[in-house]
C-alpha cells in the first residue's frame, strides 16, 4: 500500500421512517457535518465515493448521478459503489482504494438511503432480487431468506429463539443513547418473543425498520491527517467477497463469504487472533440472529457459540467484546447504505473516546465494522485503529 489511510471526520443525519429532506439534502447534511468535523471545505476534497442501495426504493434510475450535488461530487472523480446491504461499509472501502493507492490525498465517502418513497412497503423492492424464473413465482419476500437462514442456523447449532432475542434487547437498549436513533427502547426478551410472527421464526422485534438517512466520513493520507487532527483513526484493513446468487445451494448456517472478507481485512491489518485483538465490533445486524451469524463468520465467536456470548453479556457495552454499541440497525435504524456507514462513524467516535453515553467501558484501540447484503452473499469488512 502506498499510503496509510486515516478517517479524519464523520457525520450523519437523523434516521427516521420518513424524512422531509430529499436524498440530495440528506446527503448534504451528513457530508457537511463530516467536513466540519474534519475541519475541511469541499475544495480540499480530491475524490468522492458514493454509496446507495437499490434504485428501486426511490423509483429513480442512476441514483448515483442524481445524488452527486448533495455528496459534493460535482466536477470531481466520483465513483458509486453498490453491493446491496454491504454498500455502507463498501463505500469507505472504495475510498480506501482512492487514498491507499496514492491517487488522491483526500476522499469523501457518503452513503444515503431513502426507503420511504416506495409503497405499500419498501420490502417490495427486494422482490426483484430473486430469480425471476424459479423463485419469484413462489410469492417471495426478502424476509424468506432471513427466516430460512435463521431456522437453519438455529437447527444446526441448537440455538433458541430467546437467545437470539437477547441481541434485539441489547441493541434497541443501546440505541436509547444514540441521538439519531429511530427505535431506541428498553425492551425484554418476552417482548420480542410475544411480538407478532412475520415469517416465523422471524418476529416483528427481531427485525430492523425501514428508514431514511445519510452518513459520511472523510478519508485522508497520513500526511494530511496529521495536519488536521491529533486523533486520526486509521483504516488499516479492508476486505470484501461475494458468493453466488444460487443461495439455496449454500450452507445457510455459516457465512463463509464473511469469513473470507474478514481474513482479507485482518491480514491487511496484521491481525492474527481476531477475538483477542478486536476491542469493539459494529457487526451487521438487520436481524438479531444476523449479529450472531456474522460474529461467527468474523471469527469473533466459534461456530454456534455467539449466542452464549450475547446471553452472558460479553457483547454489552461494558462487556469484554462490545458489539453494536451504537444500537445497530435494530435500534438506530436501517437506511440500507447509510446504516453500514453509521457503523463506520460509530467505530470512529468510539476509538476517539468521543461517544459520550455510548462510550464502551474498555479502552478500545482496535475496532471493526461489517456489513452484508445482496442475495445473502456479500461480506464487507473494515478494521480501524486509534
Amino acid at each position, binding site marked *: 500500500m502506498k499510503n496509510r489511510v486515516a478517517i479524519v471526520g*464523520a*457525520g*450523519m*443525519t*437523523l434516521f*427516521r421512517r*420518513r*424524512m*422531509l*429532506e430529499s436524498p440530495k439534502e*440528506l446527503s448534504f*447534511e*451528513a457530508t457537511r*457535518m463530516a467536513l466540519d*468535523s474534519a475541519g475541511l471545505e469541499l475544495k480540499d476534497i480530491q475524490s468522492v465515493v458514493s454509496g446507495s442501495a437499490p434504485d428501486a426504493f426511490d*423509483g429513480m434510475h442512476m441514483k448515483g448521478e442524481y445524488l452527486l450535488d448533495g455528496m459534493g461530487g460535482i466536477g470531481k472523480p466520483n465513483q458509486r459503489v453498490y453491493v446491496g446491504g454491504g454498500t455502507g461499509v463498501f463505500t469507505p472501502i472504495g475510498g480506501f482504494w482512492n487514498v491507499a493507492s496514492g491517487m488522491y490525498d483526500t476522499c469523501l465517502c457518503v452513503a444515503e438511503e431513502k426507503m*420511504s418513497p416506495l409503497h*405499500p*412497503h419498501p*420490502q*417490495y423492492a427486494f*422482490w426483484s432480487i430473486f*430469480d425471476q*424464473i*424459479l*423463485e419469484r*413465482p*413462489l*410469492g*417471495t*419476500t426478502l*424476509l*424468506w431468506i432471513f*427466516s*430460512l*437462514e435463521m*431456522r*437453519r442456523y438455529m437447527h444446526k447449532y441448537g440455538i433458541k429463539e430467546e437467545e437470539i432475542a437477547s441481541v434485539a434487547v441489547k441493541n434497541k437498549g443501546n440505541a436509547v*443513547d*444514540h*441521538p*439519531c436513533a429511530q427505535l431506541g427502547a428498553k425492551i425484554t426478551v418476552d417482548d420480542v418473543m410475544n411480538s407478532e*410472527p*412475520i*415469517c*416465523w421464526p*422471524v418476529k416483528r422485534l427481531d427485525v430492523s425498520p425501514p428508514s431514511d*438517512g445519510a452518513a459520511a466520513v472523510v478519508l485522508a493520507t497520513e500526511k494530511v491527517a496529521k495536519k488536521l487532527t491529533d486523533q486520526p483513526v486509521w483504516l488499516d484493513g479492508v476486505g470484501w467477497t461475494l458468493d*453466488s446468487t*444460487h443461495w*439455496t*445451494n*449454500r450452507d*445457510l448456517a455459516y457465512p463463509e463469504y464473511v469469513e473470507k472478507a474478514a481474513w482479507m481485512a485482518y491480514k491487511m491489518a496484521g491481525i492474527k487472533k481476531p477475538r483477542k485483538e478486536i476491542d469493539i465490533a459494529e457487526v451487521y445486524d438487520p436481524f438479531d440472529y444476523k449479529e450472531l451469524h456474522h460474529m461467527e463468520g468474523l471469527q469473533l465467536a466459534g461456530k454456534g457459540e455467539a449466542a452464549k456470548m450475547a446471553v452472558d453479556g460479553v457483547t454489552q457495552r461494558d462487556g469484554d467484546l462490545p458489539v453494536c454499541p451504537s444500537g445497530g440497525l435494530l435500534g438506530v435504524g436501517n437506511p440500507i447504505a447509510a446504516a453500514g456507514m453509521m457503523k463506520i462513524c460509530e467505530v470512529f*467516535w468510539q476509538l*476517539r473516546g*468521543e*461517544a*459520550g*453515553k455510548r462510550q464502551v467501558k474498555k479502552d478500545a484501540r482496535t475496532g471493526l465494522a461489517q456489513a452484508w447484503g445482496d442475495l445473502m452473499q456479500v461480506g464487507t469488512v473494515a478494521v480501524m485503529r486509534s
Partner: protein
Amino acid sequence: MILSQKITSYPGHEITPEDVKEGKYLDVVYKFEPKYSWAAGVAISRFLAELKEGRIIARKCMNCERILVPPRMYCEQCFRPTDEWVQIKDTGTINTYSISHVGTDARRLKTPILVAVVDLDGATPGMGILHNLGEVEPSEIKVGMKVKAVWKSSSERQGAITDIRYFRPIGEE
C-alpha cells in the same frame, strides 16, 4: 445525548404518519408499470421443459462431479462447461423452512405461506431449491423431513416452477 462530543446538533426533519394524513407536506405519486419478457436461458429452458413433463433435471460437471440443480451450462467453481443432463428425483429433504405471514409487498396474508429449501435426492448433497410446502400443519414441519413433489396434472403444467404445486411430507422411508 451526544453523537460525538464535538457534534451537538443532528440534522433532519421527520415526517410522521399524522403529518401525511393532515396533508402537511406535499408529495408526488407515480406508478411505474413496465412489462418484461425474460428468456429463461439455455439451462433453465430445458429445466422448465422437463418440469412440464413432470420430471426434474440437473446438470453434471465431470470435473468436480457435482450434480447441479438448478442446472447451469457452466460450473462456476471449475469454470468450465458442464457435461451432461442428469434426471434426479422429485423427492428430497427439508433443509430449512419458514412460515410466512406476509406476501411479496409485505402485506399481511390471511393464510400463511409455508416455504422451504428442499435438498433434492439425486443431486449433490446441499443442492436445494426454494419451494412451498403443503398438506402439512405448520407445527408439524421439521428440518430433515422427507418430502415429495405434488405435481399439477399434465394438462395444467406449463413449463414453470409452479408446475410443482408444493412438496408434501412422505414420512420416513
